[in-house]
């Protein structure tokens, strides 16, 4: 028992009712999960059908020739690159294309899909908004 709880035991008695009731508390028949997502379906025959697509799979490209390691050396100085924002990505990727098209005369406000403008995010597997992937 810590000093704090020992001191207060004289003033206050009883359990901490506001603490989270996890699977570590309660009897051994009390089966409670910790929020793991299901990986299949529970059939009517009380069996479990595991669905491969519901089990997460890590897709990792080959790391051959990859120079970055888990930790960074203490000797490295602070970087001077500005933080990445949506405006900077736009300015580097989309703005030159729009500028080129405008100078050629082929720019039109209705055809913004050519530069990646997709307000409904249709046809995309990884939608930006609402975000449908876990990062």
């Amino acid at each position, binding site marked *: 028992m810590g000093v*704090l709880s020992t001191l*207060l035991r004289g003033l206050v008695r009883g359990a901490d009712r506001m603490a989270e009731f996890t699977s570590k508390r309660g009897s051994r028949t009390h089966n409670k999960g910790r929020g793991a997502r299901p990986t299949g379906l529970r059939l009517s025959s009380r069996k479990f059908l595991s669905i491969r697509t519901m089990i997460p799979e890590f897709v990792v490209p080959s790391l051959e020739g990859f120079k970055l390691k888990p930790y960074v*050396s203490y000797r490295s100085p602070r970087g001077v690159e500005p933080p990445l924002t949506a405006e900077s990505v736009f300015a580097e*990727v989309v703005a030159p294309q729009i500028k080129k098209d405008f100078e050629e005369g082929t720019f039109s406000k209705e055809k913004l899909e050519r530069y990646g403008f997709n307000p409904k995010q249709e046809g995309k597997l990884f939608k930006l908004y609402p975000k449908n992937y876990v990062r």
Partner: protein
Amino acid sequence: MRLTALLSMAAKVVVPKDYRFGTNRPWTAAAKRLNTAGKKRRKVFVEPIAAEDWSVLKGDMVEILSGKDKGKQGRVNQVFRHRNWVMLQGLNTHFRYIGKTGETRGSYVASEAPLLLKDIALVDPSDRKPTEVEWKFTEEGERVRVSLRTGRIIPKPVVERRDGIVPEQWKDGPKDTSPEDTLEKTYAPSLKTLEEEVMEKMGIVENRRHKGSYWY
């Protein structure tokens, strides 16, 4: 509610308005023994010094101008802004027993006493004599401490890390990325997300799309 609320309260130090600050941190048992709740102690008057005018920093070399160790120079270990105190390393000491239990007296150690700011003067690094110091701006616009007698700039003391690591002398381990690799700019901005780029590189084709979920 009681225990969790109290644990969160202990994280932030809340002291009463006329709390008498000592050398012990307010949450320690020794400080609580000296400042029990409801106990009114005689008020100490502290000369108000603005935050911008504070010249003594932790790690500085200072000289004592009055007291038992008058004329000695030492390094500042701790600074107490509430009471304009400064603790030097190994100076202005008195002796006491520590770790007294039962019959044993414990060990006899030298413990430092705090010194007021007016008994302290910063040491000029060029001639190693005490000087008055003022905050001035350099031509670059940097705010530095300048000694009034000689005009030399007193640099800020090097802050040592608590874990004792000196970044210049660090030897990279097998899991450390070297500074050159860390600062290398390899990012090519594109509108693709990381997942889309990896899929493209590995040649994974996914034509199935989510069927859309509905809430009623």
